[in-house]
């Protein structure tokens, strides 16, 4: 038998499913919500409901959006012939902040992760291949993370897309801006040398 009334237990159960929230934290949050005003508590509930009801994935690029196609895919002033492939929707915000990219996106929703049992079928790869095969693209930029899984995913996509007339590029990796070469690790330094460019 639970120590708490059923609705409270249920809220604790739900909250403890969130990443980084253990049983204890879930309990604390649940009691906080219990003590909150009705207005605040219902606002939270509504926000969660609206999130699921109003947001969905763009049918072209799989970005999270409230309109379909999303603001990037439907914008005629963006170059739809260049697409940047990212792991997660949140990566788009980082690229947009630079104001240096004016193409479209493709969100994979993850990386190949043998350890976690995530293979090509669990990612939005088929639709990327379809976009490439449709024939109007010039360049696909692979912007997965420079981690083992991100690199494996980029390599896998390269294999799939090689042989199409589309130019496939990989984002550069190397020394972070403002960092000191003296403190760069070997892998980073090697990448920086490999990725050097003509001035």
């Amino acid at each position, binding site marked *: 038998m639970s120590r708490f009334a059923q609705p409270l237990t249920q809220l604790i159960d739900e909250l403890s499913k969130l990443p*980084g929230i253990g049983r204890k934290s879930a309990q604390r949050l649940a009691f906080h919500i219990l003590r909150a005003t009705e207005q605040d508590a219902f606002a939270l509930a509504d926000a969660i409901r609206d999130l699921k009801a109003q947001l969905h994935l763009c049918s072209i690029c799989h970005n999270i959006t409230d309109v379909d196609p999303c603001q990037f895919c439907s914008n005629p002033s963006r170059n739809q012939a260049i697409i940047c492939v990212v792991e997660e929707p949140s990566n788009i915000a980082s690229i947009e902040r630079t104001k240096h990219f004016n193409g479209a996106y493709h969100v994979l929703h993850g990386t190949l992760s043998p*350890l976690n*049992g995530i293979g090509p079928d669990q990612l939005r790869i088929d639709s990327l291949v379809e976009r490439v095969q449709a024939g109007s693209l010039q360049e696909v930029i692979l912007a997965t993370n420079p981690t*083992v899984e991100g*690199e494996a995913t980029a*390599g896998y996509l390269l294999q799939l897309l090689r042989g199409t007339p589309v130019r496939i590029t990989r984002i550069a990796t190397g020394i972070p801006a403002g960092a000191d070469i003296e*403190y760069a*690790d070997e892998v980073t330094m*090697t990448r920086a040398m490999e990725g050097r460019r003509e001035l």
Partner: protein
Amino acid sequence: MTLHQSEAIVLRTWPLRESDLLVSLLTRDLGKVRGVAKAALKSRKRFGGALEPMTYVDAAYAERPRQELVRMDHFEAIASPLALPIDYLRAATLGYYAEVLENVLPDHDPQDAIFRLTLAVLEQSQVGRCWMPVTYFSLWITRLIGWLPETDRCTECGQNFAGEAAYFHGLTDGLSCARHKKPNSSALGVDSLALAQRMLRDSICAMSEEPWTRQSGRDLRRFLVRTLERHTERRLNSAEVFSRMGG
């Protein structure tokens, strides 16, 4: 508080709260330990790119009184898997080592032979040549942990396989001869039995001279993966990639 400085291999990380990571680390001095790398996702100063699975590091960490989790202070990469090209199979291979070591090793039980085995297979696991080190690792880890049955004779009757295939079953220990095999057993071919004998005798460097394809030792790998999975009662996700790729 006891401070440690040891060679180690990063097995896995899991996101914890905020930018902290929970790290499973195979250390040379204490064996497998788990601990928290505070602010690992925010500050690259203390860990750099050294938290990727199967990075060989020089690790500084602290054991805290009456606490199961150690405090990870600082890692410096000695050899990173990111230093060489990575494809899907190599990523699966690295993931497989991490998953097996994570599943089979008890905490705080240093076994230098396993540490050396892991370093040796890591060095050999390169794009286009992963099948051999995967097989070598599977065989030796199974043996070092004490789960490898006799590979030259039948567990039932003790007869030497003498140039005949052996048979294994997902639910039972050991290899059987054709006469004593259970229904729905899988065969372990003559070539693979001989390969296992060679692998138990020769160094990995000697084995790397031989030509390898995904078919080489495929039944041996499947037998070893089943053995590991049965003893730990856990499926090996990364081994599924091997099957999917026909190896």
